């Protein structure tokens, strides 16, 4: 009788009780707990009334959705939500278009100064946002963009990170795909749009996710460039709950819970692309 080889089964049953595995699982559990606890408290607080806010029990004594009705029936919240959505979507679309266009050009065309241009773009990643805020503000002020959607959006319409990410991905596209299209008579823009772009969908998804999340949660620049409450984005609006009235934690937590819905949706729908995008950004650099 031929002996059965059950290496994988034997291996898993042994490794399951290794001390190193127990330690790593414990550390992972603790790390997860640290990350999940604030979210659970946020959700818990959003279900409490004002009198229970400082009662630190995770499960509310009498949970209620009243806070959600209150926040949603307040026109300002929906306006801020919409502002954030407009800004995040517009900046994301712009980044997907322009970053990939520049990334494609740098990856697939040979021209004098190509490397210098790439290094120049990449070097802007080294400059902290805080240093850029004053020039941005002066620019916005000069062109009359203060307190406008365009004022909020313009610094992020194209990013060095996105350009870098897309360039790295386009370099993996075989030249033959583009040359075949060139022989078939397509112009360069159509080749990029019809042939190259569909081949880098994972990178485009990752870029879209990063850009959307970054702009959805952006706080610093929108706070500086907006004056009127109608143009507040959600993070600025929520913070105003805390500074303009007595702090209403249950309302802030309710707004924050609602604000996480788009980000959670994006994560749940496209998480495999996020992982791939993070891996790419790490490996190709």
């Amino acid at each position: 009788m031929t002996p059965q080889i059950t290496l994988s089964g034997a291996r898993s049953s042994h490794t399951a009780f290794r001390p190193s595995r127990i330690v790593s699982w414990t550390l992972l559990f603790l790390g997860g707990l640290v990350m999940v606890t604030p979210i659970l408290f946020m959700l818990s607080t959003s279900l409490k009334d004002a009198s229970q806010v400082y009662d630190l029990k995770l499960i509310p004594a009498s949970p209620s959705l009243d806070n959600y009705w209150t926040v949603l029936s307040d026109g300002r919240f929906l306006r801020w939500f919409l502002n954030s959505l407009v800004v995040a979507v517009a900046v994301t679309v712009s980044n997907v278009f322009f970053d990939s266009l520049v990334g494609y050009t740098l990856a697939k065309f040979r021209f004098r100064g190509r490397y210098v241009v790439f290094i120049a773009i990449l070097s802007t990643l080294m400059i902290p946002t805080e240093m850029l805020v004053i020039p941005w503000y002066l620019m916005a002020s000069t062109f009359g963009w203060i307190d406008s959607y365009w004022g909020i959006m313009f610094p992020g319409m194209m990013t060095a990170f996105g350009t870098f990410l897309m360039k790295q991905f386009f370099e993996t596209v075989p030249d033959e795909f583009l040359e075949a299209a060139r022989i078939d008579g397509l112009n360069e823009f159509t080749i990029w749009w019809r042939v190259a772009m569909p081949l880098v969908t994972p990178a485009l998804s990752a870029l879209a996710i990063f850009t959307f999340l970054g702009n959805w949660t952006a706080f610093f620049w929108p706070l500086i460039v907006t004056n009127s409450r109608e143009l507040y984005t959600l993070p600025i609006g929520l913070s105003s709950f805390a500074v303009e009235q007595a702090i209403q934690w249950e309302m802030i937590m309710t707004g924050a819970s609602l604000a996480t819905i788009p980000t959670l949706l994006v994560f749940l729908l496209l998480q495999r692309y996020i992982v791939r995008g993070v891996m790419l950004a790490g490996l190709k650099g």
Partner: protein
Amino acid sequence: MATIALDRLVKRYGKMAVVHGIDLRVNDGEFVVLVGPSGCGKSTTLRMIAGLEDISEGTVSIDGHVVNEFEPKDRNIAMVFQNYAIYPHMSVAQNIGFGLYTSKLTHGEKTKRIADTARLLGLESLLDRRPSQLSGGQRQRVAIGRAMVRNPVAFLFDEPLSNLDAQLRAQMRIEIKKLHQRLGTTIVFVTHDQVEAMTMADRIVVMRDGHILQVGTPMELYDNPTDVFTARFIGSPTMNLIPATLREQAGHRVAELDQVQASVRLPSNFPIADIGADVLVGVRPHDLVVDQAGAGTGIALKGEVSVVEPLGSETLVHLEIGGTAVIATAPGKIIPRAGDRVTVRAPEGSLYLFDAKSERALCRT
């Protein structure tokens, strides 16, 4: 259909020339194969014909028109690439139809063209599939279909069979040859595989280091190679070359094989050359046959068998003759053993003589 003419075509990358002023004329409807080792400039030449590489000097003409400054799309040629270059995000029908993207045909006409092309290539049942659901041979047929659908004046193939396994490659060779016979379109085909070149070409162009060494029909190149490189590159197994020295024996010029007690008598009209000059005597393995009876004619050589490769119909016998490794054949079921001493014999008229220095062919004998 069209003629393609290359006139003193040069390609330089910076100061380094990779194609050195080649001349070639591909006739209307002809199947020409550019063959040579990696880096010989064959793909670069093809890409210059396609318009994918700038031309440093010289001209490329298609149907009598110099097309140096034409964009690839304006040359009305089609190209099939080594890795197929079919788009993974499109179905077979979309891939074939992509060749008509800029065409002014109506939707109905395009659909008919796609259907006709698919029928010709046996792809009708696969039109809705994605490339990932196809085998290597089917993918290659889709790539050919995309090239065919535009009715180009010439097809350019850049090592299109290299990614296929041996069996599929043999099958696709026949399919491409049949396709050429049916369409009669001019084809320039690049390969490093001499078997592909021999089996498919009307004419073969042998290239090395950016130069054309020889142009001719497969049999011309096999029978009358002009130099050692072509002699060894064309034909499988490669031609044996045994070092020899020119001598005079009893009023006749002979090539005396070094370290072997044998000599080859040269024809009486052999041009006068320096006595003592080094030459190479070439003999194809299929002309060098193991002679068990010892009663044959022609030049006989003795050597020790190092390895045998039985192929069924014949056996390739690797021998050591006077310090030179030689391949001979043993017909039928005769299979010598390693270590045996055997006599191999090449008939008159099957030997080639090359100058050892210039490697140019001198004569056949």
